[in-house]
């Protein structure tokens, strides 16, 4: 009887274990039952995310990203997985793929890249998670090991930025974006991804640079290893993996296109908008770097000078007030009817007690922007400027 029970338990264990060894998506690919449920779940989580107000809506940019993604895969694969790239307004460096081919990229990482070859590396990596069915394999693996996803999520609470994402994403997105995949899957995504990048004709030397951007970010923000691209293997190991792979497998064939100019022309708007997000997040150095990078493409855009002024005004390091004024004046010299630098420079004069200069700036601001959302504050400052002047 005892042996019978043991046998029963063994049988149920075997029957309960689903294979995690799945072939990649090919032209005769069909969704398995649990995979269908995973895709359905992904759609539901994407619906929440897409209606959150966090999606960066710009058709031209989306078309460009989707075109690059489309060039990385064969038509057969594209017919099986409807890849779609969506940009998220978030200054932190991250990207994540849902199993149904919807890939979210933060503005932060797009703004940090230098060219199309780096973008292709990121997209190829994320697309490989989909084509090689990593979500399903990870899901089955966890199910087989009876590990509750909640426990995994709990273990990620200490990761910087992870808590926000946990609140935002459902379990499928969480697995992709926060907890990441195993060392095996991440390495597979790196190595298959680099092949796709090479096949598409991009310069593979640009591939490790994504990780170099991340390493720099870690150092600047004094962060631990990020959850981006999964937590394993470590960034430095992955840079080495890329280099070793290129040295051994593609010796002598390491050239290709970078398309830096096209990339920066297409994505310049993201660079500036993301720099404003960095300012909101209080990441002054990162915001400053973004504004200066943008100015290389658009040297006469007053918004970038206004942003540099705001960074200096809010950071308040030594000589920042003078720096801020100079940037605001530069913005106004390009576009005299730009109201925001007038308000900002007025605030600086007001705090310095230069009431006449402050009054002039505030009055110009309100005349250019009579319905400004902060007009109640400005009217209060003006009233006080008039009071002091009279007294």
């Amino acid at each position, binding site marked *: 009887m005892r042996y019978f029970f043991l046998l029963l338990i063994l049988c149920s264990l075997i029957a309960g274990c689903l294979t995690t060894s799945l072939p990649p998506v090919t032209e005769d690919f069909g969704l398995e039952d649990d995979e269908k449920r995973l895709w359905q779940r992904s759609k539901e989580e994407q619906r929440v995310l897409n209606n*959150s107000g966090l999606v960066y809506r710009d058709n031209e940019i989306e078309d460009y990203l989707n075109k690059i993604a489309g060039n990385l895969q064969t038509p057969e694969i594209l017919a099986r997985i409807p890849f779609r790239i969506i940009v998220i307004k978030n200054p932190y460096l991250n990207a994540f793929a849902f199993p149904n081919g919807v890939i979210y990229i933060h503005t932060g990482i797009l703004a940090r890249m230098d060219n199309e070859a780096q973008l292709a590396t990121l997209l190829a990596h994320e697309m490989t998670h989909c084509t090689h069915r990593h979500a399903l394999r990870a899901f089955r693996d966890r199910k087989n090991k009876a590990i509750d996803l909640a426990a995994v999520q709990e273990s990620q609470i200490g990761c910087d930025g992870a808590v*926000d994402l946990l609140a935002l994403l459902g379990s499928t997105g969480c697995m992709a974006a926060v907890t990441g995949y195993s060392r095996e899957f991440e390495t597979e995504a790196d190595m298959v991804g680099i092949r796709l990048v090479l096949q598409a004709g991009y310069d593979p030397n640009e591939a490790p640079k994504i990780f170099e951007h991340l390493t720099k970010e870690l150092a600047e923000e004094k962060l631990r290893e990020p959850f981006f691209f999964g937590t394993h293997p470590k960034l430095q190991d992955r840079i080495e993996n890329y280099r070793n792979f290129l040295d051994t497998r593609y010796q002598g064939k390491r050239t290709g296109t970078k398309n830096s100019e096209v990339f920066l022309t297409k994505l310049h708007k993201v660079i500036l908008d993301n720099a404003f997000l960095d300012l909101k997040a*209080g990441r002054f150095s990162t915001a400053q770097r973004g504004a200066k990078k943008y100015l290389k493409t658009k040297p006469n855009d007053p918004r970038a000078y206004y942003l540099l002024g705001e960074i200096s005004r809010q950071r308040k390091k030594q000589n920042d007030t003078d720096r801020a004024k100079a940037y605001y004046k530069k913005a106004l010299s390009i576009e005299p009817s730009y109201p925001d630098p007038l308000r900002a420079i007025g605030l600086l004069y007001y705090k310095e007690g230069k009431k006449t200069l402050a009054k002039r700036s505030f009055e110009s601001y309100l005349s250019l922007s009579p319905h400004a959302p902060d007009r109640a504050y400005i009217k209060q400052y003006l009233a006080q400027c008039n009071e002091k002047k009279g007294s």
Partner: protein
Amino acid sequence: MKRLLLLLLLLLLITACAPWMQGRGLYESPKHSFTLDIPQKWMRLNTDKHLLISRDGPFLQYVLVQERHFDQPFRHTKKRFQRGMLPQEAAEVILDEISSDRSVFNFSVIENTPATVNRYEGFKIVFKYRNKDGLGFKTIYYGVIMGERFYSIRYNAAERYYFEKDLQTFEGVLNTFTITGAHAA
């Protein structure tokens, strides 16, 4: 007798750890930095970190009063309050903190104006947002800078039904809010 003593001890422990307690009447913060009147039938969360009161549960409505030193970092923005900041600049920091929170969806500012909380000059922000489940909330947030401390009193409620319903009660609470800390003028 032994059992009775154990039971009593257990009862004492349970009541001492009760997360919510009746809080009607004058409330004085543990650091003696502010006071206010808690309205009838509202419960107070038993914590020293801040004052959180609610009648039907914080998911439906709450009033939260916080005091923070300038050194205390925010959770979502690395910006800090600084000495000599204007109320408008302090409001900007608070808005950046809230809008950088990734669990706040469809965030929109309805009003951002200078405001006086009793005799203290500060700001008033009114904003709306949705949570992950799509539920809409509305908040009125008052902030005051006093020396190197920032005081805030906010009313948050489900946008539908509850916000309007308890708005008057919040205004009553706001009128009794008094800063009594060392920096209070």
